[in-house]
């Protein structure tokens, strides 16, 4: 009996210590809230798309679908956060650039071609090179010139959408091929949205990379103490640079999904405010925003939890422009809870409570 109890308490301790606790708890709160408010939130319907293929729909599917870009971005953002102790706020703008470059390649000279002028893979590679170059630009500013990440990325945050518009001469290219919509929609015959599979693929790749290379270890070492990692033979500048380039690649994947959803692009609206969501996902995953240790799984889960929140807010008819206000409150609540001084205070309160208990038991 006592053994069971200790096992149980061990289990609890493990969960308490796990970073997964925060996103899981947040998810649980929202699930309960939705169950009480309107259980139909969880309904999944099997419908048919206009082309006659089976398609699953419902709020849960929306979350899996729309949360995927965010999850992919969260992967890169976690690495940048861990290595540099700062965040990249240009991801929304660089998504616009990546998407714009892809459409430019696909369209060729004409902005409304009948068929695609280049294979999608070529467009993706060119777009990825563009976003990785932008990531490298951020990386050089941060690693070489020692500029705070958020200020360095502020440059592209302002210029990014302008560059995106400039790439396509401010025209709105439209792709008419059905094939191109597969990435952001459904592959015929598979009722689950494709973005989810892409996010899953990215998740598996980063899991394997972290498992079989030293990337994770090195990144954490640089984030925890840059100078001591240097003394241990690492090259902190390169690790920081690399994290930004990886984020650039993640941005390219997210951009492909984003432009595929619409088959076109709107420079000022595409991926608007996504930087906030990506940072929120990292914070919700229990990762320190000041760098150091990270948990990739928690970040990815965090991204889907954010989307859960967004979808819930949409369901209650909150206009999309007002969403940031609610999310900002969540961010502040999260960072306040994870602030060291607040934690210390909470712990001291806990201690005084438990010591009272002990003294009572003794008495």
């Amino acid at each position, binding site marked *: 009996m006592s053994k069971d109890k200790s096992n149980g308490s061990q289990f609890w301790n493990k969960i308490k210590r796990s970073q997964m606790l925060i996103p899981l708890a947040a998810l649980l709160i929202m699930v309960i809230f939705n169950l009480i408010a309107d259980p139909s939130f969880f309904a999944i319907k099997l419908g048919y798309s206009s082309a006659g293929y089976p398609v699953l729909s419902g709020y849960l599917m929306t979350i899996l679908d729309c949360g995927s870009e965010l999850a992919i971005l969260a992967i890169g953002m976690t690495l940048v956060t861990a290595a540099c102790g700062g*965040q990249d706020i240009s991801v929304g703008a660089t998504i616009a650039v990546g998407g714009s470059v892809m459409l430019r390649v696909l369209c060729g000279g004409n902005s409304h071609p009948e068929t695609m002028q280049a294979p999608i893979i070529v467009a993706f590679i060119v777009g990825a090179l563009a976003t990785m170059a932008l990531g490298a630009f951020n990386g050089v500013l941060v690693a070489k*010139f020692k500029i705070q990440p958020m200020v360095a990325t*502020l440059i592209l945050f*302002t210029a990014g959408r302008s560059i995106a*518009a400039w790439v396509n001469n401010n025209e709105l290219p439209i792709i008419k091929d059905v094939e191109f919509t597969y990435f952001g929609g459904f592959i015929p015959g598979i009722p689950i949205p494709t973005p989810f599979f892409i996010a899953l693929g990215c998740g598996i790749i980063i899991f394997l990379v972290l498992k079989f290379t030293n990337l994770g270890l090195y990144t954490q070492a640089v984030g925890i103490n840059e100078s001591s990692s240097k003394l241990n033979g690492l090259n902190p500048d390169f690790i920081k640079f690399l994290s930004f380039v990886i984020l650039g690649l993640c941005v390219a994947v997210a951009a492909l999904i984003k432009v595929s959803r619409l088959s076109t692009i709107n420079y000022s609206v595409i991926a608007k405010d996504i930087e906030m969501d990506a940072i929120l996902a990292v914070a919700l995953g229990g990762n320190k925003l000041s760098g150091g240790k990270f948990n990739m799984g928690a970040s990815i889960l965090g991204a889907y939890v954010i989307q859960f929140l967004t979808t819930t807010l949409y369901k209650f008819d909150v206009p999309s422009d007002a969403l940031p206000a609610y999310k900002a409150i969540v961010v502040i609540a999260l960072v306040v809870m994870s602030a060291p001084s607040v934690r210390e205070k909470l712990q001291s309160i806990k201690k005084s409570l438990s010591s009272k208990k002990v003294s009572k038991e003794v008495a």
Partner: protein
Amino acid sequence: MKKLSEKLRSLSDSNLLLTITVVVFFLMYIGAMIFEGGGFLKVQTFFNILNANAYLIILSCGMSIVMICGGIDISVGGVTALVCMSCAVYLDFHNGNVFVAVLLAIAIGLAFGLVQGFLVAYLDIQPFIVTLAGMFFARGMTTIVNTKPFNVENEAFVALKNARIEVPGMGYYNKAGNYVAAYVEIGVIVALIIVALMFFLLKKTKLGRAFYAVGGNAQSALMLGINVKRTRFLSQVLCGLLAGIGGFVYFLHVGSGASTHAAGAEMNAIASSIIGGTMLTGGVGNIIGTFFGVLSLATIQNIVSSAGLDQAWWTGITIAAMLCIFLIIQSVVIARKKKSVKK
């Protein structure tokens, strides 16, 4: 020649950066006068730059102070939009009083400053995260207050908005031979007063010196007996307050409320401060430099648009490029300083 380089070397970082800014501004403006001619030769063009950027001068003053103290505030643009919308709704829908609207603007700015300052200084949360949340909160709140943009038609306000302060001796004769007086708007006067006040605050008061000390090295500031937390708190509060005032000046200039108002203003304010020689790392900066930073930024925008590159994207790209160049200059200055310390 040698003397000049020696002189340059003897300049402190702050003065070196300030000199670069002022020289860049005058070169740019004179260049514009020579190559663009026309508009730039009129004094009114310069005054129009001031009129359109009075709010930015005020925002940048606040930004500089926060940056000197080692923090940052990217909520100022959002606060400006929120102030515009709130004042517009109050004046138009509730037929309010202009004076109360000013108080409302100040209260909004102050509220943001107080909350953000508390979170940054006393809970020790990164200022960027706090104010990023503040920015999104302000932008979101703006749409919650009112979704649609509209022009304010309150009579007292419109009278104030159209008030022109004529500057004697600066006007010109138009083609019909009539004298057209040069004018500035009320916002410019407010901005100049604030520049003077903040200059005085930073140079002559204990609090101002504390800002520099905390930004330069918080540890040694603590050793000197400065209340570091309170100083940080006050810097954020001051920035919030100035954002509120700047928001009202912007409102006075545009006379409407919209959720897209002052988009990217935080970026312009940071860019102006950096161009003006305020260091991101804190401890170095100058309000006069910030003032010239705003003017440089505005001038380059004017040059870009009068050179026929009217598309909106050029403005974004030029500002970003300028910011990038000045950031790199700063980092070179820091590197030079470190080397000289090592020697």
